[in-house]
């Protein structure tokens, strides 16, 4: 086991530990920290998958934008400490575990056995080729993403500004 494999195992442990912390922790702030840990772990896995551009985008968009947005919401929502903590009943925990385990066992055969074990092919998709792909074949989804983001920004502003009070 060389150094790369050790770092790989540490990355996987950070990813799954962050996911478990995001689901199981009692405080919403700790859940947010677990989400950030998971996103950093996935950025590391993208580097192991030979796509450093996606890793940078993961850190930039998820850690830099989405997590900060959720942190702002946690701060703006106000006193969550008046309520008791996020502990729910044991029945709800059993239901969540059951639903998630059923979906896991439904998907595990499909995901693990449908796609053949490839013999480590060489992979040299660079950032330049992703850019060419976006501007040659995927022009319509690219433009639709920009339209979606603009509409989402306008909708968020409309929701936050013009619908206060009990009209």
């Amino acid at each position, binding site marked *: *086991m*060389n150094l*790369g*494999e050790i770092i*790989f195992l540490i990355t996987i442990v950070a*990813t*799954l530990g962050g*996911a*478990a912390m*995001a*689901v*199981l922790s009692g405080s*919403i702030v700790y859940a*947010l920290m677990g*989400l950030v840990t*998971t996103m950093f772990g*996935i950025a590391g*896995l*993208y580097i192991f*998958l030979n*796509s450093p551009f*996606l890793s940078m985008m*993961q850190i930039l968009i*998820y850690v830099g934008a989405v997590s900060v*947005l*959720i942190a702002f*919401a946690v701060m*703006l929502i106000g006193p969550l400490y008046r309520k008791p903590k996020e502990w729910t009943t044991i029945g*709800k925990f059993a*239901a*969540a*575990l059951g*639903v*998630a385990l059923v*979906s*896991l066992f439904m*998907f595990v055969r499909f*995901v*693990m056995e449908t*796609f053949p*074990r*490839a*013999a*480590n092919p060489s*992979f040299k*998709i660079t950032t330049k080729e*992703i850019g060419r*792909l*976006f501007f040659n074949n*995927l022009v319509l989804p*690219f433009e639709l*993403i920009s339209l*979606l983001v603009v*509409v*989402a920004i306008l*909708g*968020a502003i409309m*929701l*936050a500004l013009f619908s*206060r009070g009990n009209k």
Partner: protein
Amino acid sequence: MTDLLYNNQHIYLFVALLLLFFGIAGVVYRRTLIGMLVSMELIMNGAGLNLVALNRFVSPENGYGMAFTLIIMGIAAAEAAIALGIIMLTFKKYGHIEGGDLKEMKD
């Protein structure tokens, strides 16, 4: 050199599957709307990891998986913005963001 641990396709797929597992469990288990949103982000991250791993190992000659992972990132950002707007509106109207108590959203 072909049997290095990080060149194994199934490890990535299983990590993505476990992220889906944690996400579904969190959507059911969490009580507040922000917790559910965090779990949804976990599910989207798992989907992106799955796409990139299959792109790397099954069809390495083009980059469609990575492109669609970038599209998923854009959709996740837009979805988080809209969802947080709705959550803040809910808090302003009801004073709490408990998912189980929102029974009068009809009017």
